């Protein structure tokens, strides 16, 4: 008998973590992630979750406590946002290069300055090269489900990499939606206990962890890490399929598409903006315009093959970024899509760069309508390389 609860994204994340039975949790509150810490503390206080909870004094310590527990052999969980993620960057990079299968929820929030607390993936996107797997969610159901999938991906012996489950601050973290809550027994079957076999601090089998390393050996470790990241591509797909078989919900693996099969035009999205994009696509389809949405679910590893397959042969593509890449004057996802599509056809597909929805501003259906208009009128690639800004009240 399916159990439905109305809950916000933070609760979905906390609940997802609870079902996975972490041994050690350490998290420091930061808007808009704070309720996750509170919900987890509540679960523990009420005996619903048997985990050691460290009330750490900063995010740097949160990730450090988690690393210690993971090295000792535990399954761990933490969560943070923007400034906290920046503060924990020092141990963050190490978590992946020590091959620790930690799962961390990132409630995406803009980076300061200017002073801001509102949602946007600038925080996690800026750290995309730190070696973690990054999965971006569209709605609260996906948050809960992806946390469970994340442990299965991370702890896979072919992967052994930490996973970020990212979702937009306030849009998802604080908005309530109907979420189906899985059975603990099913989760236990899907996700068996974790055994650290490759980097464990245990007096019964003494080793040193992270000795000073010469360059030739460092290169080896980097290569192995990168190979593991590539193997994660197949693992992310297969875990999603298996999850679908057990729980009845599947998300498309690395990318999720909407009305894409016969689409001439494609809007590429990331995160919760996809909802508004889908509405705009429906309106356009009613008018006979063949447009669809391609949502990038896994940003790392970047799904190059999937993107090429799905975007090949289209007439024009728009990438809507809710973030900036200062040095390029475009968004980050736009650059990644351009790189993926390089050379797939002799005439490059026009790729339209958009930036909007920063600092908590909405990305509205109207804005996506405008994007679709632009797509229809799009000339060749070279005429479409300037970023267009989606700003409320303006039409640039």
């Amino acid at each position, binding site marked *: 008998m399916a159990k439905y609860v109305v809950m916000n994204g933070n609760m979905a994340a906390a609940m997802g973590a609870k079902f996975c039975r972490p041994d*050690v949790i350490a998290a420091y509150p930061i808007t808009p992630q704070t309720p996750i810490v509170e919900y987890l503390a509540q679960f523990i206080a009420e005996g619903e979750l048997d985990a050691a909870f460290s*009330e*750490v004094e900063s995010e740097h310590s949160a990730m450090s406590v*988690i690393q*210690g527990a993971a*090295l000792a052999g535990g399954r*761990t969980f933490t969560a943070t946002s923007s400034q906290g993620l920046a503060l924990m960057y020092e141990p963050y990079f190490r978590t992946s290069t020590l091959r620790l299968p930690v799962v961390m929820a990132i409630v995406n929030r803009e980076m300061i300055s200017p002073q801001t607390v509102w949602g946007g993936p600038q925080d996690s996107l800026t750290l995309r090269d730190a070696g973690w797997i990054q999965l971006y969610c569209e709605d609260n159901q996906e948050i809960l489900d992806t946390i469970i999938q994340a442990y299965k991906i991370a702890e896979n012996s072919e992967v052994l990499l930490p996973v970020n489950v990212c979702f937009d601050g306030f849009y998802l973290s604080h908005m309530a939606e109907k979420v189906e809550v899985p059975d603990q027994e099913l989760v236990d079957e899907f996700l068996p206990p974790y055994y650290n076999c490759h980097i464990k*601090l245990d007096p019964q089998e003494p080793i040193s962890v992270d000795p000073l390393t010469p360059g030739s050996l460092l290169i080896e470790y980097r290569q192995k890490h990168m190979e593991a990241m590539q193997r994660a591509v197949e693992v992310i797909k297969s875990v999603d399929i298996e999850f679908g078989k057990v729980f009845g919900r599947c998300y498309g693996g690395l990318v999720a598409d909407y009305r894409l099969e016969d689409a001439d035009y494609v809007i590429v999205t990331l995160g919760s903006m996809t909802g508004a994009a889908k509405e705009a696509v429906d309106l356009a389809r009613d008018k006979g315009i063949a447009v669809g949405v391609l949502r990038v679910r896994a940003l790392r590893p970047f799904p190059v093959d999937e993107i090429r397959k799905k975007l090949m042969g289209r007439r024009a593509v728009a990438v809507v970024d809710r973030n900036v890449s200062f040095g390029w004057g475009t968004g980050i996802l736009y650059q990644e899509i351009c790189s993926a599509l390089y050379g797939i056809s002799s005439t490059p597909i026009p790729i339209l760069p958009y930036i909007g929805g920063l600092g908590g501003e909405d990305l509205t259906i109207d804005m996506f309508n405008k994007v679709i208009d632009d797509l229809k009128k799009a000339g060749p690639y070279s005429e479409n390389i300037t970023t267009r800004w989606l700003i409320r009240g303006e039409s640039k």
Partner: protein
Amino acid sequence: MSLVTELCNKEDLLSPGISSCIGCNVELTLRTVLKVLGPNTILAIPPGCMGGVGVVGWGKTTGAKVPVFFPLLDNVASMLAGIKLYYEKIGRDVNVVAFAGDGATVDAGLQCLSGAAERGDKIIYICYDNEGYMNTGFQRSASTTKGAWTSTTPVGEASRGKKQHKKDLPLIMAMHDIPYVATATPAFMLDLVRKVEKAKSIKTGLAYIHVYNPCPTGWGFLPAMSIHMSREAVKTGLFPLYEVENGKFRLNYKEKKSDVKSYLRNMKKFAHLSDEEIDEIQCKIDEKWSRLLYLDGLLIGSDGGN
């Protein structure tokens, strides 16, 4: 059996050949600490002298016979807290120990050490205080004595060495109401061993030991005088030996015999000090000493009813 034969009979859990400077009493301290703690120990060595000399190993090797790892300079206490939390959860009693320099403790790692102390994380934190970032070329730390030459507080026309007095971390740790705080130095080895054994037995919170390790290479004196300098530091009152157990302050070594001038003049890092500057240091020592004499026997923190 005497202390020394007891120690000699215990297994040396460090590699016999590590590249610390000749006469390094930090190496002596670490070997002794590990003998007291035994093989059921996980050791954290942050970047610094002991990390640099190979205790965590090189390439695919290790420098110790116990599990040992490099935390970051500024998260030693937090990583250990995580390790301890997991072992507690699975019901295994393991010594979880930091052996960190003053850089990682008094400067960069102070936040997480304070957090771990406040939370009552059951780790043993031993700081080896050689008054500076010795491994990387003798840069100053907050634990450097005032007036010292260091590579970042050099002596010249416009500067007379470090401008600030030494940060008193042991008393700061005592104010966290942790069950055990102690100061020690290798010259007083029986005292140091007893304190490590005490720390090992603490089951209710963080145990902190601050060890004073005069550094022949960085401070500029003969390696053979390494233990002598450690002894003189205590006898001049420059580094008092005390412990705070469940809030009760106890001054261990009460004979302040020597004045500090001959001690300071015996090393290069203070060679530039004028008599007035040495007097200032002497005053500070005397002022602190009378304060500690006053505190002796008093309850200065929580009595462990936590």
